[in-house]
C-alpha cells in the first residue's frame, strides 16, 4: 500500500489539541525535524509529549516548549533546556521523569500489546511510589504500564512507500519502539524509495507499523556535544 504523503504539514492531518504524541530521538540525534517544525507551524496545543529528551532552547522539542504547545512532558532526561526549566519551576509544564530503560520498554510494550510488565529499575525509589511491586525469584520488581500515543512521529534514514524503515547509526534509539506504539505513526525519511529497493533482511521497522511517510528536507542534524581528537 502506498503510504506516502506530500510533506510534513499533510502528514499531521487529524492531529488535534490535547493529543498524546511520541517523538523519536536521543538528544537531537534522530529527531523528526520536519514534523516538529510543522507542529510549531500548526499551532496545535495542550500536547502530551513522550520523548527521551526535550530538545534544546531553539531546536527539537524546545521549539514547541517556546511556543507553549506542550502541556505535559514524559522524558528521562531534560537537562539541556533553560525554557523547559523555567516552565517546569513555574508550574506551567507538567513533567513525568521516567528511567530511560523503563521508558523504552513501556513504548515497546505499547507497540507489542503488553499492558504492563515488571522491571527492577526504580524499586525502592520515588518513581516506584504508588506502583505494585512483586518479588520474583528473590528479587523485587515494579509494575510499569505500557505507553501508547495518538500520533508517533519518527525519523528514519531510508524508507519505502510501504512504510518499511531503515535507521542510520545511533539515530535509531527510540524511533523503532515509538513507531510501534502509535495509533497513527508518521515517518519522515532522508531517502524515500520504491518497494523492492530495501532488502527485506535489512528492514528495521516493518511497514505495518507505519501509516504515513514522506521525504523530509533541509536536515540540519545539529550536534549537541561536538567532541574530536587531534590527528597524530
Amino acid at each position, binding site marked *: 500500500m502506498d503510504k506516502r504523503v506530500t510533506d510534513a504539514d499533510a502528514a499531521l492531518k487529524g492531529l488535534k489539541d490535547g493529543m498524546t504524541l511520541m517523538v523519536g530521538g536521543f538528544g537531537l540525534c534522530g529527531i523528526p525535524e520536519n514534523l516538529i517544525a510543522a507542529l510549531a507551524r500548526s499551532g496545535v496545543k495542550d500536547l502530551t509529549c513522550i520523548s527521551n529528551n526535550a530538545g534544546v532552547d531553539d531546536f527539537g522539542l524546545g521549539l514547541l516548549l517556546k511556543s507553549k504547545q506542550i502541556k505535559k512532558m514524559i522524558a528521562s532526561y*531534560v537537562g539541556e533546556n533553560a525554557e523547559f526549566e523555567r516552565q517546569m519551576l513555574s508550574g506551567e509544564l507538567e513533567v513525568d521523569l521516567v528511567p530511560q530503560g523503563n521508558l523504552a520498554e513501556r513504548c515497546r510494550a505499547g507497540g507489542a500489546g503488553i499492558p504492563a510488565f515488571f522491571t527492577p529499575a526504580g524499586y525502592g525509589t520515588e518513581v516506584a511510589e504508588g506502583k505494585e511491586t512483586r518479588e520474583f525469584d528473590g528479587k523485587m520488581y515494579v509494575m510499569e504500564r505500557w505507553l501508547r500515543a495518538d500520533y508517533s512521529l519518527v525519523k528514519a534514514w531510508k524508507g519505502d512507500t510501504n512504510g518499511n524503515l531503515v535507521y542510520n547509526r545511533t539515530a535509531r*534509539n527510540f524511533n523503532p519502539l515509538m513507531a510501534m506504539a502509535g495509533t497513527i505513526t508518521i515517518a519522515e525519511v532522508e531517502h524515500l524509495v520504491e518497494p523492492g529497493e530495501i532488502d527485506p533482511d535489512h528492514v528495521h521497522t516493518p511497514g505495518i507499523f507505519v501509516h504515513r511517510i514522506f521525504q523530509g528536507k533541509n536536515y540540519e542534524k545539529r550536534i*549537541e556535544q561536538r567532541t574530536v581528537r*587531534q590527528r597524530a
Partner: protein
Amino acid sequence: MALDKNQIAKRIARELQDGYYVNLGIGIPTLVANHIPPDITVTLQSENGLLGMGPFPFEGEEDADLINAGKQTVTLLPGSAIFDSATSFAMIRAQKVNLTVLGAMEVSDNGDIASWKIPGKMVKGMGGAMDLVASAQNIIVCMMHTNKHGDSKLLKKCSLPLTGVGCVKRIITDLGMFEVTPEGFKLTERAPGVSVEEIQKKTEGRLVVPDDVKEMVI
C-alpha cells in the same frame, strides 16, 4: 596526596578484565576509557544503542547520527553493533553488561546510591542511571569523598532521593577504595599519602578498617 580524576579513572581501569562489556557513565567514568590496559579487550556499551564504541572522531569526521549517551560525537570500532533503546536496556537488565561505572552524590554503607535529584533545585532526570544500578552485575561508584562543603558523601543513610537500593558493591574516591559489606564500608586501599585517620574523619557511614590497609598503586 588525594587522587585526581585521572588517577581515579586509572585505578578503576585496573578492575577491567579481558572480555568485559562495560558501561561508563558521564564524568570521571568516561575517563576510564583512556586507561584500558593494552593487553586486554574491553567492549564499551553506550545505552543510547551502541556496543563497541570507539574514541572521538578526528576533526571534520564527526557524524551527527553517531553519538554516545552523553551526546558526544564518537566513532565505531570494527565489530561494533547498533540497536534500539529497548534492546540496549535488555542487555543491561539481563546482566549481559559485566560492569557499570558511574558517579554519585551520596552512597550509604548498605549500598544505596543517590545521584539524580536535589529537591528544590532543577531536576534534570535520571536518564539510564536507575536502570543501570537496578540490574548491573557489578557497580563501581567513583566520586570525590566529600562535597564542596567538606561533608562526607559516604553516609549511614542517603539524605537525597535514591537512584537505587543496596546495589553498590565498590566505591573509589580521591581518598581510597572501599567495598560495601554487611558491616559497612570496608577500606581496601588508601590513596598514596592519605592516612587512615583522614579517611575515618571524612567518612560519616560505618567504616571497617582492616589491620593492614595497602597503599594504592596507581
